[in-house]
C-alpha cells in the first residue's frame, strides 16, 4: 500500500490546506484513471448508476410500492416495460427506486467503516507499544468471525432491540463495524511508514499535542491510502448490503431492495423471469462498474492487487 504515496500528492504538497491538496490529488488521480480502458468503462457504468439513483424517483412510471392486482405476473408490455411481480408491482419502477437505497447504504457504511478504521489505525500506529498491541489483538478477534456471520448476528439483535430505528441505519452501522478491523490494519501500516519521517519528529519536538500530530501531521499523509481503501471497499459494501437483503435481513418490504427482490421473485422464475433478473442485473452491473473503476485506480497508481478479504 506504500505505493499509494503517489506522485500526484507530491506535486501539490506545497499547498498548505490539506483539503485543497487532497482535492487536487483526487483530480489528477481521476485523469490518470480515465486513461485506462477499465477505468473509463467503470467510470461510465458508475456514472449511469449514480444518475439513475439521483433522478430515479422522478422517472419511475409507477409508484414502486403500488399493487396492480389486475396485472399480476405481467410479461413485459408497453405499460410495464419489465413486467410486474406477484403483486402486480411495476418491476422497472422498483429497480429504479432500489438504486438509491443500496448506493446510499453502501457509501455511508463504507465512509463510516473507513473513518472508524482511520481513527483506530492512526491511533494504534502512532501510539505504538502496549496500546498498539491491545488494539491489534482486539482487531484480530473481530476478524476471527466471518463478516457476514457477524453482520447476521448483529442485525438479528439490532432490529429487535432498536425496533424504532430505520433499517438502513442499522445496516450502515453493521457495514461500518465489519469494515473497521481490516481498514485499521491497512491505515496502521501506512501510519507506521509516516511516523518516523522528519516533519512528525519536528512537530513532536515543537511540543505539539498528540491529537494535533495524529490528525494534522499524519492523517493528511495517509489520506491517499484511505481514499483507495474506500474505493475498493465500496464494492464489498454493496455485496454485503445486497447479500443481507437477499437473506431477508436487509431493508424490509415494501421498500424496494435489489437483493430482496431477487430472493422473492426467484420463486416465480418460470412465469416472470425478468422480475428477478432485472434487479440482479442492476446489482451485478453496479458492482462490475465499481470494480472496473477500482482496477483503473490500481493500474493508474501502480498498486498491486492485494486481494483484500471482503
Amino acid at each position: 500500500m506504500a505505493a499509494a504515496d503517489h506522485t500526484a500528492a507530491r506535486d501539490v504538497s506545497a499547498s498548505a490546506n490539506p483539503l485543497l491538496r487532497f482535492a487536487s490529488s483526487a483530480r489528477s488521480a481521476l485523469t490518470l484513471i480515465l486513461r485506462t480502458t477499465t477505468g473509463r468503462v467503470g467510470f461510465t457504468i458508475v456514472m449511469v448508476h449514480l444518475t439513475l439513483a439521483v433522478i430515479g424517483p422522478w422517472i419511475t412510471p409507477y409508484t414502486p410500492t403500488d399493487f396492480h392486482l389486475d396485472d399480476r405476473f405481467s410479461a413485459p408490455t408497453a405499460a410495464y416495460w419489465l413486467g410486474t411481480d406477484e403483486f402486480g408491482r411495476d418491476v422497472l419502477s422498483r429497480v429504479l427506486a432500489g438504486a438509491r437505497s443500496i448506493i446510499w447504504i453502501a457509501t455511508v457504511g463504507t465512509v463510516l467503516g473507513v473513518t472508524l478504521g482511520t481513527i483506530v489505525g492512526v491511533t494504534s500506529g502512532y501510539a505504538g507499544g502496549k496500546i498498539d498491541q491491545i488494539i491489534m489483538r482486539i482487531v484480530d478477534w473481530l476478524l476471527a468471525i466471518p463478516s457476514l456471520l457477524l453482520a447476521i448476528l448483529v442485525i438479528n439483535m439490532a432490529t429487535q432491540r432498536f425496533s424504532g430505528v430505520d433499517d438502513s441505519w442499522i445496516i450502515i452501522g453493521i457495514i461500518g463495524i465489519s469494515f473497521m478491523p481490516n481498514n485499521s490494519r491497512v491505515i496502521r501500516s501506512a501510519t507506521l511508514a509516516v511516523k518516523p519521517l522528519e516533519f512528525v519528529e519536528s512537530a513532536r519536538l515543537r511540543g505539539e499535542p498528540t491529537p494535533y500530530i495524529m490528525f494534522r501531521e499524519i492523517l493528511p499523509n495517509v489520506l491517499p491510502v484511505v481514499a483507495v481503501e474506500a474505493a475498493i471497499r465500496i464494492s464489498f459494501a454493496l455485496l454485503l448490503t445486497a447479500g443481507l437483503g437477499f437473506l431477508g435481513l436487509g431493508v424490509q418490504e415494501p421498500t424496494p431492495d435489489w437483493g430482496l427482490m431477487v430472493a422473492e421473485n426467484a420463486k416465480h422464475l418460470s412465469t416472470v423471469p425478468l422480475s428477478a433478473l432485472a434487479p440482479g442485473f442492476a446489482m451485478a452491473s453496479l458492482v462490475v462498474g465499481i470494480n472496473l473503476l477500482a482496477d483503473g485506480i490500481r493500474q493508474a497508481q501502480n498498486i498491486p492487487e492485494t486481494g483484500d478479504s471482503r
Partner: protein
Amino acid sequence: MARFLIVRISLIMVTLLAVSIAIFSLIELLPGDAAALMLGQQSTPDSLRNLQEQMGLDRPPHIRYLEWIGGALRGDLGVSAKSPDISISSVIGERLRNSALLAVSAFVIAVPLGLAMGVWVGSRADTKIDRFLSMGGLVTISLPEFVTGVVMILVLSTMLGWLPSSSIMMPGESIIGNPQVLIMPILTVTGALFAYIFRMARANVIEVMESNYVRTAVLKGLPMRTVMVRHVMPNALLPTITVIANNVGWLFGGLIIIENLFAYPGMGGELINSIKTQDIPMLQSTAMVIAAVYAFSNLAADLTYGLLNPRVRLS
C-alpha cells in the same frame, strides 16, 4: 513444527473463547429470552415462567454460558427450541457434512484450475487473450452469488429442465444419494472462487516475471518451460496461496448465501432458518460452529503455507 502447532492451537482456543462470549452476548442482548421468543403472542406470565424453568433460563447468564460451553466441549449442544426431541448436535453434524461437501468440492475444482489458468495467462501479460480473460475474471468476481445462481436456475432448471431448482431433501434422503442437487450449488461457489484465484495468480506471476532473477534465467538461455516451473511458479504461487488462505471468510459468506438460494441443507441454511424461526439455542450453536470451522480452516491454510514455504519450514 509441533511447537508451532501447539502455539497456534492454543491461540485459536483463546480466540474461540472470545468469539463464544461475543456470540453469547449478542444473543443475550435480544429483547426477551428464548422462551419468550418461542411462545410469541401466546405467552402468558405463567406459561412463560414454566418454559423458562424448563429451559433453565431462570438462572443467571454466566451459569448458562458455562453450561453451554461445557456441553459444547463434550459434544452436547442441547436441544432445539422447536422441540426437545431435536438434538442440536445431530442436526449440526449432518448440516456440517453437507456444507463441507459443497465447500471441499468447490475448492478441489477451483484451486488447481485457477492457479493453472493464472500461470498460463500471467505469462502472456498484455496480450489480447490476457486482457479478455482478466476482464472476464473481474466481471465474474463482481457478480453477486445470488445473481449467478438465479441465472443458473433459470437456464439449467426452468428452461432446459436438466437439474432440480432446489436442494430440498425429503426426510431420510441424503445429499450423497442425490448428487444432481449438488451440481448447481457447486458451480456457483466454484465460479467466483475460480475467477478470484485466477486473478491473484495472474497478478503474482506478472510481478515475478518482471524480477531480475527471472530475467537472468531467461537470458542465460534456460528454456521457457524450465523458467516457469523452477523460477516463476514457486515464487508466484506462494503469495497466491496466502491470499487464498486469508480469504476463507469470503468463501464462508458466499456459502451462506448460496445455501439459502438453493435451499441446500447446510450450515448457512440452518443459520438463517434459526433466525427466521427465532430458535435461539440452535442459532447460538450454529454461529459458534461456523466460527470454529472458520478458525480451523485459517489454521489449515497457515499450515499449508508453512509446508510450502522453505523459509517458514526450516526455521
